[in-house]
């Protein structure tokens, strides 16, 4: 597969960060958690806090890559009746308010496939989504997903764990655009007390194969994690469960949730200065 050289919002955002000597901070929010109106407010809060990009989840009934915190957020959204099409509409409205912030979707194959791949990626592209990561599609199953994404100008993002073989990383580098999602550890999503980072060889292999910038996720919940990740060679970090915890702690008070999210993003973003 050949990578097309289309300049995306990610490229522009990452270039600005490089010029400023900063790493990327990307918060994760579950769309529709706890309801669509609050979710719209939280997306704005993430931007107010200084997010360099935003990763959003489309809630799925069987999220095998997620730990209890993110799964609980999906359950809240599903219980509120939130549908994938509502999520895409929410993103389209948000895109109108925030024309430049890169937005990436993280979801599961069954939702992407459920009508047809082309239809899902086309609707994401029309809403102004920049990337899609399908958590249960590994590199070896990714070709149809990558092709459908690239056909409409959406960046396919793939996950590079520490145990991936060199052959897998090479195939990943050919198929992954915008950024490479590197995971800190084994297991599912969830906030950790301490990170264990030994990613030098992984980052080096990814660079050698020309993979897009490494963004580190899973367990990132404190400013010191951000500093450690950047020091270990990551270009940026994603923080999911820690953000979602701030939403779940403020269910029923959207403004308090927005303040908590904005202030967490601000605190984490401040740690991205190198």
């Amino acid at each position, binding site marked *: 597969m050949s990578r097309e050289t289309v300049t995306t919002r990610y490229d522009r955002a990452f270039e600005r960060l490089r010029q400023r000597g900063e790493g990327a901070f990307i918060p994760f929010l579950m769309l529709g958690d706890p309801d669509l109106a609050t979710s719209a407010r939280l997306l704005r809060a993430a931007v107010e806090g200084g997010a360099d990009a935003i990763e959003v989840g489309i809630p*799925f*009934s*069987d*999220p*095998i*890559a997620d*730990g*209890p915190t993110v*799964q609980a957020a999906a*359950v809240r959204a*599903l219980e509120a009746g939130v*549908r*994938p*099409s509502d999520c895409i509409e929410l993103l389209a409205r948000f895109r109108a308010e925030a024309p430049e912030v890169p937005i990436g979707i993280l979801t*599961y*194959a*069954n*939702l992407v*496939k*459920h*009508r047809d791949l082309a239809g899902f990626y086309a609707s994401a592209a029309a809403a102004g989504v920049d990337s899609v990561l399908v*958590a*249960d*599609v*590994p*590199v*070896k*199953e990714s070709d149809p997903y990558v092709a459908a994404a690239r056909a409409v100008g959406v960046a396919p993002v*793939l*996950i*590079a*764990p520490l*145990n*991936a*073989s060199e052959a*897998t990383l090479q195939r990943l580098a050919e198929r992954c655009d915008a950024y490479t999602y590197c*995971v800190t*550890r*084994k*297991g*599912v999503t969830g906030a950790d007390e301490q990170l264990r980072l030994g990613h030098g060889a992984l980052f080096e292999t990814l660079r050698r194969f020309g993979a897009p910038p490494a963004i580190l996720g899973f367990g990132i919940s404190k400013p010191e994690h951000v500093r450690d990740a950047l020091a270990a060679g990551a270009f940026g970090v994603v923080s999911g469960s820690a953000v979602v915890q701030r939403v779940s702690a403020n269910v029923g008070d959207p403004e308090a949730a927005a303040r908590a999210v904005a202030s967490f993003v601000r605190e984490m973003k401040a740690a991205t200065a190198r």
Partner: protein
Amino acid sequence: MQQSGRFGAFGGAYVPEILVPALEQLERAYLEARGDPSFAAEFDGLLTTYAGRPTPLTLCRNLTGDPRVKLYLKREDLLHGGAHKTNQALGQGLLARRMGKRRLIAETGAGQHGVATAMIGALLGMPTRIYMGAKDVERQRLNVFRMRLMGAEVVPVTSGSQTLKDALNEALRYWTESYEDTHYLIGTVAGPHPFPTIVRDFQWVIGREARAQILQAEGRLPDAVVACVGGGSNAMGIFSEFIPDKDVALVGVEPAGHGLSTDKHGATLLKGRPGVLHGSETYILQDEQGQVAETHSVSAGLDYPGVGPEHAHLMTSGRATYVAATDDEALDAFQRLSRSEGIIPAFESAHAIAHALKMVAEAAQAGREAVLVVNLSGRGDKDMEQAQRLLDPGRST
């Protein structure tokens, strides 16, 4: 991986990337083991001396009421542990030990697979943890007790619908952090490649025995082989050997629960659509938004919204036919087999009996000769409490 893991358009390995090396290791180990006579010798030996194979093929003496219509039962209910699950738990247990894994995890619905895994864990001296939906823990208290008696840790899963699919999610999650020293002993022909192939191959022994036994008993192949389908391992086990015999109808019976026109059923192939669940591209019961549906069956072992990908292929290619039996039909068959033959089937198997009885009635009415083989995948002991509640509510305590 060396094999595509596809059955037509179905199958594959849809898992977080971190599990791919674990699946590749499993595939390598399996292909090596398959070519190693010492592995086959130990597996076959334990099937005979520990599990009690071969299981008999029993002709029903009273159930059909018509001497021209013969109904045979492949007696997996007589296997050690009380169900066909023992076959493949033994195979995977030996494979896990061969790979140097120290612990086993599994998920279970009715509890039969959990019991089988607990047995093999005890036999091989491997600590075993069983994930089970909290609702199923309640429905299948006897099996939970059995598992604990054999030293397994039973973990009730309270997320989602608290049934088999959620237990599977939880086991997969745990495996993503434990795969280095832990084997995930998936219980049916579902899940990511290579599980559907491995489980089918270890269950194939049912079909090999059944084919030889019916040839000996009748001097010919049966008109149809009938088996219940939840995930579909007992059905794949008996179907596989007959797939090349084009004149033998293969009939899978799904749980119709309260009826296929309601949303309380588990008829994945009949009412589902292609999708991706628990590592496989297969038929899935899902809503119009792509969310996986909660299912219903009187039988916890069939209460699953997915199905093995090879069944999806057998259906779409036309080689096998899939039908459904309701809770009531299964309960009726459960009682009829018990009364007429003195054999109490598992609720799962009662679904296959229920449909076979329809086929018997049709053949009898048409004055046709017929030979049917039903895979009696398990015995009903585990369902006694529930059966008593449903059939004799006045006397239950």
